[in-house]
């Protein structure tokens, strides 16, 4: 930008003031129109339709089970992103609110069964949310004092503390075997006692929609906008009248509420809560979901929850190395795609708008075969390596991609090595062309030289 341009901008005579309506009025109207909730209604409507017809498309028991788990993960990951993506708070202990909300929901379920409490099942997640909130308030009151590393440390400490407590207090947490309940003992809702998985699916789908809607709306409130502002620059926020600590506290409590709701959904779906549900592994898993999906976007955690649940349920059936693949995916995301999977898609927005996606499609097309070869080679090497490393003597068969390979022979290793090396080499050779195509497609020609 040239000095004269910036100079004229700074002198403050922009816009066309000759019209009947002043320029600022047009901009204000424009901002309000684009931020208006009704503009997002088609998206919510589409989400509703998709949620309703999913069980018809995937009607198998496995399919419904996976979708239920996805729904729970979506609410949990979205609540996590209220901290990390929107508030700049990296938590290593978010499972605390999920787990405690879930445990208390199971206990409430048992009170419904044995003590005659009246509570329709669809309200249980809200009860779980209130419990999550009840724990978030006291913990948030001291942990939101600072963001960044300090917040991360406190969340880790609190997470470990609660996880350790869950082993000690058997009466509440049920020790090793956890606490279980029966969701069907409440008053019927529209004639349903939630005996089948599909009925539970529709309950979860409804709650997912409501929770996501409210979390989205929260991001558009003064409290939600200031959470972004404090994330960006906590000092400046203090000098426009906001206490950074209180702004974070409000987000933290809201996040605890929705995490507790996810815990309530978990209680309904699985009817059992164990120590695992509030320990560091679960806390780490929600970080993975949100980050791989993309913390900078509202839909990011939803994408992450869907993808990682699929990896967790489908991939784990095919390979015992699935967590290794998830770990590799996560580290690669942190290093090369810090805006997550959603960011990778969003990156192509400019090319789509200018109609230059075709340039990219050709470049990507050329890279597909080498990429697949490279991935296949790497996966083969890892899977065969795993068999060679782990199995008892005499057992040397690896089952990959429906093939059975004998790892004691040289041939499969050579093939795998050739695929990985050849694909990798071709990708490296193609990289400059890809970069160039991307620059041209997004109108940054010259940037990639």
């Amino acid at each position, binding site marked *: 930008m040239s000095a004269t341009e910036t100079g004229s901008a700074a002198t403050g005579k922009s*816009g066309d003031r000759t019209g009947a309506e002043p320029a600022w*009025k047009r901009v204000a109207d424009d*901002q309000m129109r684009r931020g208006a909730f009704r503009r997002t209604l088609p998206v919510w409507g589409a989400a509703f339709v998709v949620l309703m017809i999913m069980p018809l498309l995937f009607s198998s028991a496995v399919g419904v089970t996976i979708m239920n788990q996805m729904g729970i993960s979506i609410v949990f990951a979205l609540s996590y992103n209220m901290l990390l993506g929107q508030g700049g708070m990296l938590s290593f202990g978010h499972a605390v609110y999920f787990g405690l909300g879930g445990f208390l929901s199971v206990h409430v379920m048992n009170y419904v069964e044995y003590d005659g409490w009246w509570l329709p099942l669809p309200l249980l997640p809200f009860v779980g949310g209130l419990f999550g909130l009840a724990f978030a308030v006291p913990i948030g009151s001291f942990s939101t004092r600072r963001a960044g590393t300090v917040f991360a440390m406190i969340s880790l400490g609190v997470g470990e503390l609660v996880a350790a407590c869950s082993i000690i207090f058997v009466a509440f947490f049920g020790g090793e075997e956890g606490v279980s309940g029966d969701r069907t003992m409440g008053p019927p809702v529209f004639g349903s006692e939630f005996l089948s998985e599909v009925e539970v699916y529709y309950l979860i789908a409804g709650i997912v929609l409501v929770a996501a809607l409210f979390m989205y709306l929260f991001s558009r409130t003064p409290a*939600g906008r200031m959470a972004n502002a404090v994330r960006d620059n906590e000092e*400046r926020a203090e000098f*426009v*009248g906001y206490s950074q600590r209180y702004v974070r506290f409000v987000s933290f409590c809201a996040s605890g509420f929705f995490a507790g709701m996810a815990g309530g959904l978990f209680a309904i779906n699985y009817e059992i809560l164990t120590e695992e549900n509030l320990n560091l592994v679960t806390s780490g898993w929600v970080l993975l979901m949100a980050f791989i999906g993309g913390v900078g976007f509202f839909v990011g955690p939803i994408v992450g929850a869907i993808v990682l649940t699929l990896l967790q349920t489908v991939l784990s059936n095919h390979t015992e190395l699935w967590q290794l693949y998830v770990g590799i995916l996560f580290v690669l995301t942190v290093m090369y795609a810090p805006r997550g999977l959603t960011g990778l898609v969003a990156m192509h927005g400019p090319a789509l708008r200018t109609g230059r996606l075709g340039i990219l499609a050709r470049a990507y097309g050329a890279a597909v075969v080498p990429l697949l070869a490279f991935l296949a080679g790497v996966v083969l090497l890892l899977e065969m390596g795993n068999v060679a490393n782990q199995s008892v003597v005499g057992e040397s068969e690896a089952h990959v991609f429906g093939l059975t390979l004998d790892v004691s022979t040289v041939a499969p290793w050579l093939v795998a090595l050739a695929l990985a090396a050849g694909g990798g080499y071709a990708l490296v050779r193609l990289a400059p062309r890809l970069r160039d195509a991307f620059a041209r497609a997004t109108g940054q020609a010259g940037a990639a030289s």
Partner: protein
Amino acid sequence: MTAALQMQGVRKSFGPTEIIRGIDLEIPTGERHAIIGPNGAGKSTLFHLISGKYSKTAGRILLNGTEVTELQPYQINRMGLSRSFQITNIFPRLSVFENVRCGLLWSMGYRNSFWRLVDTERALNERAAQILDEIGLLERCDLPAGVLAYAEQRALEIGITIAGGAEVIMLDEPTAGMSHSETEGVVELIRRVTQGRTLVMVEHDMGVVFNLADRISVLVYGEIIATGTPEEVRASKAVQEAYLGAVDAGEGEAH
């Protein structure tokens, strides 16, 4: 009538080093007051003390007659004092429009409410757009603030500062690093937006200072050695000896 800002014996030490060594200053309501002095005199430190960023080692500070010495920055801001920063201090990932809107939220009574949507509040959005118009960034309102050109970021910095309608505005080197023509624009902007308010500014550009200020204080080594109208300060022997000569010598390397 009480002064907008009063400092009584304000001191600040960092470890054994005393940076601010007893400041007594009254700035009447509606005055444009400039604080000048050589590099390292403690001008920015004084700003940080007044606005609550630093705690005070000794002394009192009163805003419109109310003591604010021990208050946090956000509390002082809510009482009607708003400041800018020497190093641009904006919300880089938010849009330009949102930067200004965030500057408005508290003062327009939205607090931390989570039951109202910012996009449905007409008065809020119109006010934000008006301020953007005022600072000349209306056409850039959808860009992330972090990608603006330097001079534009400085203008935005002023916009956020004045957005809340504070009665006392403090600007820390608003023209630093700007070209001559940019500086002229900013001076006009400051004159316009501080109409009817109290302005306290730190500034190195003597042209800007003598152009804008009603009164000037000269800060040297943590002490105010002179306060008065531009003419008085220009004529003061002490100032010439202690400071003006130094500035002339150092102007070339000023940023």
